[in-house]
């Protein structure tokens, strides 16, 4: 693109600065308990001031309030936004950029100010203007312009209740980025990777054990001084103080020494409910591992188990113990 073309584009888009994106948008629903509940369920926010009338009445809020972060939610277009969005001034502006090859769009950041708590029954109206368009910038994603919109939120009495600055980058995707996108545009590439279990940090004293697990083997550290076995591995023998050691491979025969069924909190990458046990190995040491192939109510302390080192997700090999 030539300097002239850039100048043309910039002149065209700068005319949008200061314009209202559309007529003020009144929220389709007033602030209400059902939407508050959906929001807090999804975000996992258990603060009772959002749902427990009795608690809220006694709190400093004096009654139920909406989570402040829902401010923008109340005036959102809803489902129609992803069907046939209305061609407002902001979308028009984006089309101007598109026509000049700036087809990429990336939300970069928002800054929100909250002036008062919203309560069920409040009506929220959003007034959005195109506030600023930056100079032409070179970014990691490509060359582009930052567009800033400012939304003022008002209530039923016309009083200001909050303000939000929203910043997006409209950019010309880098050649290589675009290429990478094309080459992986198959259906499989669209799928986000599944979360995996938290990986064991590996250091001087434990990495060898996890590397053996990766090879399908459960090892037990053995002191070269006195022959005693120890787990978890430690750099020195507490019995004879020898720092020399080797390891034996476990038979994977054992029994349940204690166990629990994990329900909550649920962490990404783990299947719940998840059975976890202290397993007493035949060799004499114990370790923590998951139980598999049995229902929780079948598990008991003293149950004989047989281990198997296996892949549990894309990144993780672990010993699992099955009823023997």
């Amino acid at each position: 693109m030539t300097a002239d073309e850039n100048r043309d584009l910039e002149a065209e888009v700068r005319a949008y600065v200061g314009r209202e994106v559309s007529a003020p948008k009144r929220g389709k629903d007033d602030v209400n308990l059902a939407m508050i509940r959906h929001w807090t369920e999804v975000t996992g926010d258990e603060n009772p001031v959002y749902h427990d009338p009795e608690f809220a009445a006694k709190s400093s809020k004096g009654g139920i309030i909406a989570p402040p972060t829902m401010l923008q939610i109340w005036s959102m277009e809803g489902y129609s936004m992803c069907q046939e969005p209305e061609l407002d001034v902001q979308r028009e502006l984006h089309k101007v950029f598109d026509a000049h090859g700036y087809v990429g769009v990336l939300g970069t950041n928002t800054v929100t100010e909250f002036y008062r708590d919203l309560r069920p029954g409040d009506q929220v109206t959003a007034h959005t203007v195109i506030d600023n368009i930056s100079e032409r910038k070179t970014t990691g994603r490509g060359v582009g312009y930052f567009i800033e919109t400012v939304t003022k939120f008002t209530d039923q009495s016309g009083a200001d209740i909050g303000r939000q600055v929203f910043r997006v980058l409209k950019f010309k995707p880098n050649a290589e980025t675009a290429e990478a996108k094309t080459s992986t545009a198959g259906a499989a590439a669209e799928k986000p990777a599944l979360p995996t279990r938290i990986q064991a940090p590996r250091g001087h004293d434990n990495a060898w054990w996890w590397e053996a697990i990766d090879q399908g083997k459960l090892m037990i550290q053995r002191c070269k001084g006195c022959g005693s076995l120890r787990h978890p591995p430690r750099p020195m023998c507490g019995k004879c103080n020898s720092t020399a050691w080797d390891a034996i491979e476990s038979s994977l025969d054992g029994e349940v020494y204690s166990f629990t069924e994990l329900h909550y909190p649920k962490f990404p990458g783990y299947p719940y409910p998840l059975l976890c046990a202290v397993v007493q190995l035949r060799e004499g040491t114990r370790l923590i591992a998951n139980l598999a192939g049995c229902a929780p109510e079948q598990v008991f302390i003293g149950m004989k188990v047989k281990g198997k080192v296996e892949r549990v997700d894309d990144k993780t090999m672990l010993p699992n113990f099955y009823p023997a």
Partner: protein
Amino acid sequence: MVARISDKAAIVGIGSTEFSKDSGRSELALAAEAVKKALDDAGLKPSDVDGMVTFTIDQNEEVDVARAVGCGDLKLYSRIPYGGGAATGTLLQAAMAVATGVAETVVCYRALNGRSGQRYSSGVSGNLITGSAIHYSWYMPFGLLTPASWVAMFTQRYMHLTGCSRDALFEIAHSTREYAVNNPAAFFHQRPFTREEYDTAKKICEPLRLYDCCQESDGGCAVVVTTPERARDLKQPGVMIRGVAQCAARDQEEMTSFYREEIARIPEMDLAADEAYAQCGLAAKDIDAAVIYDAFTPIVLWQLESWGFCNYGEAADFVKDGNLRPGGRLPTNTHGGQLSEAYIHGVNGIVEAVRLVRGTSVNQPKKPVRHALVTSGVGVPTGGAILGGMV
């Protein structure tokens, strides 16, 4: 050899912020307020303070708290590791400093945004709060990530060995809740609950359900420790530290001591109890009320055994007989405990134990409280203190 620490130091001031789920301010603000309130309670000025003790996991530097409150020169600053296991360890540091003259007036504090900030129930799932990443590598991939999960493992085996049922766990949860109902500072103030609510609450880690687990709280607490001589001239009747001990027992891990001969026991607390009793020549029969660390219901049972209120395996019956209740043998967690008041890592417990000896608990037992026990967190290296009136 028994430590000569008994009656060498007294607690002369206590202070707490409000307890909440979202303090809306910094942990430093909480710490400063708690410390200032404790000094006001004692009738001391910030410039009287020459020592500060807290937890290694506390995010408030001693000097920052000192500057915020306007303290002068400090001659002692010290920190105790192992989460809630540090609670009464702060008293041991303060008492040693006061007894040896290293410092004359020491403030012990703990302040945290334990709900709105780093949530304690999330355990080691996020950024490790302890730095001991290799240690937790043996548990994280298996999903054993939270304090509740570690405690559940000990609990299941304890129940298996002793025949203890959920009836005893309920009694602990229920008795502390009943105390909290009367305590305006408690999260569960005026919110009693039923057995049905307890039994149907969310499952956490078998056999623990929601109400077997303590609060996650924002708040701060502080106590002021000084010499018995100075204590006599102050506003409040001094509360003597009769005995105070901490212990990390053989083969201890932080929360995951799964490899000992028997895991359904807490030898570190047994040893701390022996030591604290030996220091002051007292025994379980001399303890009139207690604040027993209750991050989870079952850990109260094990501590009752450690401190000799009953034999091993008998705590469930001791509890079910109503002994923790207002008229019982050992009114316990009269503030509502960490299950029902707030989870300030046991320092709100120290504050309550001081009130019990002063006679100012919101649930003050009818009988005289000559000695009150207060303990630290369980599963970690731990300890306890025996508090009594001025001698």
